[in-house]
């Protein structure tokens, strides 16, 4: 496997690798290339997926170059790229095979851009064999150190080690664990945090419930604000997904614990967030359908994949139409006012640091109540229970899950993780049940719209019928699994389960 590169920060001006020749042990020679001034552009997703994976992806105006964590380097001709670059548009090849699984379904954005002068050198041994490559990246900012990377060729780690040791002995050379991308990000306006910025992480058992809930809701408000521009610009579907998660959780927390906030806050904002939820739903549903399209095609047994092409074309057109009211809403004064008024309201609530009830008290009370509801409904579910009862259980499980996550900073981590794991097993089956029904109804609605638009062809309609039947079967299969999964959950959790989350009952 490729060798891990070694990085150094070199404080010498000029950064010419030829100056290092004297430092090298006898037997090695350096062959330096000419200086090359270039614009350096690192690409990444909005949520820093490449950074977190230790991957550097650089675009030089004509090609994409990736440096993988183990030292492997990949490149592909890319021509002139338009950013944001959807992951599906990364040119095919070995680079795409590595990068797409990390970034999909997110688009690649310009993460950081600067101007550097690059000098490369090849290190040769006494046989004149190239054993390592040196790359000096000299930033345009005066006083910034040169970033020197020593990359051993495969099988020549010992040579690179010897060179690295020699370089580390120089007073103007400091070894660093940070690669060029991370180094460039240090000076960027927007940088990845090592953990997501979360105000709710500061929640303590003794703080007032009002303050604690305000912290949680502020995190969701930040998520909405941060993702809204990406939704408006339609950069990739995850912006809308993350926006809607924040809206959904806001609505849930307001419903389940909003009574600890001043009365006018709940009254003023419940309807506004319902509006946001409603206006974002159609596009999100279509995004999910389009993302799952390859899987839908895989479910066909009689129809051919091409028979679903009219459906796909319809979904794309329909999505474009549904985006118009969504974008209008997010650009509207109503949304701007909602955001600023909401922040102001939460700021006011967050300053009420002390008072009853405490965060721990409200956590214990609401989490236990939600758990009891799940147990009560769960015990009543039988294979003959109507669909609405199952949907009711799904909603209660969701509320229980949101409450667990809201108060997670207060919970015993092991007890919290165990309960989430058990609940998730039930939610997965309930989700499959819900998805089967929703998607079947959606297919029916799409078919009606396609027919109304005069685009109906028999093979397409039959293929869509086949899909609807497959979704029905999916829902039935989930229904059949539910009893066993519920039984396991009910056996493993009882009233003492939630007490283990806050063992001292939040005593302060």
């Amino acid at each position, binding site marked *: 496997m490729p060798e891990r590169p070694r990085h150094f920060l070199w404080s010498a001006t000029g950064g010419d690798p030829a100056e290092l020749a004297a430092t090298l042990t006898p037997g090695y020679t350096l062959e330096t290339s000419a200086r090359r001034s270039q614009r350096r552009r690192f690409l990444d997703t909005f949520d820093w997926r490449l950074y977190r994976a230790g991957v550097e992806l650089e675009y030089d105006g004509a090609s994409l170059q990736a440096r993988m964590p183990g030292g492997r380097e990949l490149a592909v001709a890319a021509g002139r790229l338009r950013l944001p670059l959807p992951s599906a548009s990364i040119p095919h090849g070995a680079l795409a095979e590595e990068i797409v699984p990390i970034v999909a379904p997110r688009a690649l954005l310009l993460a950081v851009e600067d101007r550097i002068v690059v000098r490369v050198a090849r290190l040769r041994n006494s046989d004149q064999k190239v054993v390592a490559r040196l790359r000096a990246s000299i930033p345009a900012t005066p006083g910034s150190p040169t970033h020197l990377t020593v990359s051993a*060729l*495969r099988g020549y780690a010992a040579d690179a080690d010897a060179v690295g040791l020699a370089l580390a002995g120089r007073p103007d050379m400091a070894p660093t664990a940070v690669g060029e991308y991370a180094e460039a990000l240090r000076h960027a306006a927007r940088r990845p945090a090592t953990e997501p910025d979360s105000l709710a992480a500061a929640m303590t058992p003794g703080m007032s419930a009002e303050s604690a809930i305000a912290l949680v809701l502020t995190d969701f408000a930040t998520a909405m604000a941060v993702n809204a521009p990406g939704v408006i610009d339609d950069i990739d579907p995850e912006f809308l997904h993350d926006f809607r998660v924040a809206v959904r959780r806001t609505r849930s927390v307001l419903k389940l614990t909003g009574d600890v906030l001043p009365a006018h806050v709940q009254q003023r904002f419940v309807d506004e967030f319902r509006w946001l939820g409603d206006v974002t739903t159609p596009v999100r549903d279509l995004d999910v359908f389009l993302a799952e399209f390859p899987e839908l095609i895989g479910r066909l047994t009689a129809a051919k994949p091409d028979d679903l092409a009219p459906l796909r074309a319809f979904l794309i057109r329909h999505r474009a139409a549904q985006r118009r009211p969504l974008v209008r809403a997010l650009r509207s004064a109503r949304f701007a006012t909602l955001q600023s008024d909401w922040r102001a309201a939460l700021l006011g609530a967050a300053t009420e640091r002390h008072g009853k009830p405490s965060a721990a008290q409200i956590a214990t009370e609401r989490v236990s109540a939600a758990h009891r509801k799940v147990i009560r409904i769960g015990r009543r579910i039988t294979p003959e229970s109507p669909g609405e009862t199952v949907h009711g259980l799904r909603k209660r499980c969701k509320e229980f899950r949101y409450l667990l996550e809201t108060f997670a900073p207060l919970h015993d981590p092991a007890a919290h993780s165990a309960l989430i794991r058990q609940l998730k097993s039930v939610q997965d089956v309930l989700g499959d049940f819900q998805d089967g029904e929703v998607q079947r109804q959606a297919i029916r609605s799409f078919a009606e719209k396609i027919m109304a638009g005069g685009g109906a062809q028999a093979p397409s309609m039959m293929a869509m019928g086949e899909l609807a039947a497959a979704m029905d079967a999916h829902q039935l299969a989930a229904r059949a699994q539910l009893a066993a999964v519920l039984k396991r959950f009910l056996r493993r959790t009882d009233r003492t389960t939630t007490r283990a989350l806050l063992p001292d009952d939040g005593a302060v």
Partner: protein
Amino acid sequence: MIVIAAYNIKGGVGKTTAAVNLAYLAARSGAPTLLWDLDPQGAATYLFRIKPKVRGGGRALLAGKRPIDQAIRASDYDGLDLVPADFSYRNLDLRLDERKRPVRGIDRLLRPLAGEYEYVFLDCPPGASLLSESVLYAADIVLVPLIPATLSLRTFDQLLQFVAGAEVRTPSVRAFFSMADSRKRMHRDLVATMPAARPQLAATVIPAAAIVEGMGQRREPLVAFAPRSAPARAYEALWAELTTHESGPGRRP
């Protein structure tokens, strides 16, 4: 992964020259390529300036004590790696014979690399031995350089019989004329007439040229330092012929 073995029972026919230049062309086309120098003489290893040494020797490789990827060395050319020669390879027949199913020994070593390389070239020593059988078993294509002379063709026929009698996975045998001297009448006559009788013969003919000797002096593939020379252009044509042949290079399942 496609395994191409440059092989002939006779020595001195241009196996190493072909393996080195075709491996270079494969890597240059963007396909990750590995060249394994199985000849204890280590000519290919020398040309790439790599030390002819494998830790533990052939014995450690075949016994599985050392995974083959630890022996791999990058060449100076992007996408082209080498498993170097080692003098212990002179005993590879013995080492193979110590293992169960000895004919599958080379194939067993190459299989874990299938996800990493698109082409593996095997530069094989001359002869007809257990190692040769093991190479034939591993190969998808057996590439046979032939000097256009009567005795060479006799040896080629012997090779075809050898392949037919060996435990193989039916590799595609592709021969080509190598070191063809257009000043020699026999060479000209055989190049003109033999393809009709030997369908395995490629249309491309590699001409003899003094510049090929420059490889040993410069320690570079010919197509790298003299791309416009006649033999270099011929190797390009041969590579194009191999990669677009109708029967196609067989793909390892």
